[in-house]
């Protein structure tokens, strides 16, 4: 842990849900993560903030198994994740809304919702198509409040609006009852009312005893929902604050300082 790190009380009581230690990741000459430590407590909402290119999405990709770290370790509930693939991370209960949504645009809605985790007849691998379609419609209507008439689960994703696509990516993360939900800039492309829905949803995650990582460039959004803020800058963690210790203005001030100096005062 860095000197100025603050640890949330919830993380002290029990083993944290996730602990990432000394994570390094480079893309060729670009160092995206340079020894990042990152902890997510049980039933905690963590706001991950930082400038463009700070390494937020990369950290998420390492945590979800999309990218393999060059160095460093990941612990899930205190146990080291040695073979950390996307499949594993989804199986242990991590669901993610990726920044670029990760949709297959020529496929229809239900296929997108169950991409990588198809509803099958047990181990035969044959897909329960009817059930997938029903679940898809239910999910879109209830969770996201899609009201567009003529909405069917067989609609191609390609023709949908940005907000609708985002809605599908979010519904997908909700469906599997994950213990950790990661949202990488989920409010991109969303209208005001849709944004509020997402924020309400994040609060709901907390109420259901689960944890969430929330990445956004909107300090106002993240301040209103997170318990703790972690600030990344150029591949390093430069600060962690509990919400109770910092005001919104104070947080904005600190971020401006980091942007200028690359460290915290």
């Amino acid at each position: 842990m860095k000197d100025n790190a603050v640890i949330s009380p919830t993380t002290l009581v029990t083993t944290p849900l996730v602990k990432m230690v000394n994570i390094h990741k480079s893309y060729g000459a670009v160092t995206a993560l340079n020894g990042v430590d990152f902890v997510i407590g049980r039933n905690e909402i963590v706001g991950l903030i930082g400038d463009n290119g700070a390494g937020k999405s990369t950290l998420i990709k390492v945590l979800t198994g999309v990218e393999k770290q060059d160095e460093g370790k990941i612990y899930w509930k205190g146990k080291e994740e040695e073979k950390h693939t996307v499949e594993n991370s989804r199986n242990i209960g991590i669901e993610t809304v990726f920044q670029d949504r990760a949709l297959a645009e020529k496929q229809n809605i239900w296929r997108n919702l169950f991409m990588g985790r198809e509803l099958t007849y047990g181990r035969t691998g044959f897909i329960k198509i009817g059930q997938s379609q029903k679940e898809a419609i239910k999910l879109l209507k209830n969770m996201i409040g899609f009201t567009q008439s003529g909405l069917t689960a067989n609609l191609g994703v390609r023709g949908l609006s940005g907000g609708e696509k985002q809605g599908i990516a979010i519904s997908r993360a909700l469906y599997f009852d994950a213990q950790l939900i990661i949202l990488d800039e989920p409010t991109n492309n969303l209208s005001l009312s849709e944004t509020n829905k997402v924020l309400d949803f994040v609060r709901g995650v907390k109420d259901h005893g689960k944890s969430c990582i929330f990445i956004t460039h909107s300090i106002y959004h993240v301040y209103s929902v997170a318990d703790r803020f972690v600030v990344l800058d150029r591949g390093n963690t430069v600060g962690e604050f509990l919400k109770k210790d910092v005001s919104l203005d104070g947080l904005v001030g600190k971020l401006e300082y980091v942007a200028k100096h690359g460290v915290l005062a």
Partner: protein
Amino acid sequence: MLEKIKQKINESKLQLSIFGVLVIVFVIFIIKNPQTFLSYRIYYAFMSTIPFSAILALSLTPVVILGEIDLSFPSVMGFSAWVFAFVFNQTNNIYLAFVICLAVGMFAGFINSVLIVRVGIPSLILTIGMMFMWRGLVYIASAGQGLSLVGTKGTILYKALVGRIGGQVPAQAIWAVVIAIVFALILNRHRFGAHILYTGDDAVSAKMMGVNVAKVKTIVFMQVGVCAAFVGVLASLEVLYLWASTGEGYLMKSLASVFIGGTSVFGGMGTIFGTFVGAIIMGSLEAGIVVGGISGFWTQFIFGLVIVISLTIYAYMNKRINLGRKLISSIKSLFGRAKK
């Protein structure tokens, strides 16, 4: 109810239009030469030859859905068939020959997949190279000589693969139908098929959602090798002789079947039914042209015409231009103007 039917039709537009092309082609055949095309004999002939290119086309369909291509399959077919004939002539054991032959095909597909998926060579270029290599190996190994397979006649495997069921139906036709059904089930209803669609559509997204993209591609390329070997055996047993040139002539016909069937070269979409119908069209055109009393000189031209017409139809569909509606609206506007 009506809505549901409408939606079904909308979803099957592609399949319906290729089927329409098939119907049109056969109506023309029957009009031109009813005597031939209303008798069983011509269909018997079709059923003994079309299955070869049909099975190859079926196995290529998932490759194209992945956004990849395989041009090496005719040579893999040739080499595996040579292995089959060689092992049979050495051991007189057709089962051993058959198993080794399929293994060789699978191995050839595996090499393709390693070089494409792990090493990162584009499949178009790699499989051109492999096409020459495997064909070259056939000529080196056989010194250009064919091998007789007369000894296979009478074995159970021979009957099961290319025998005549009830003296009427070539067994290879049954194989083609069964393989088509299995492929359609896997593509549309199995998680592996779903993973092929996701990978071909957007490999990055698929990977992010936990699809093992490398494994999917590997299995798909290996499957082509196995099917090529299988067809190699079928085609050789059918004529009871191995030619060193076995497989030549299937490249364009099989690929064209996939594309006129409506599978998109951009990946992420495809239809097994379309490929199957496409193979029937490609396979019957040649015979149809000759029997229909059209000069053989027209064959290539008509092949090309059918391909271009079907590709044009799909291009319009993809642009979501509703030709019918456009026609109606332009007629309406014409009348509107006339009234004024």
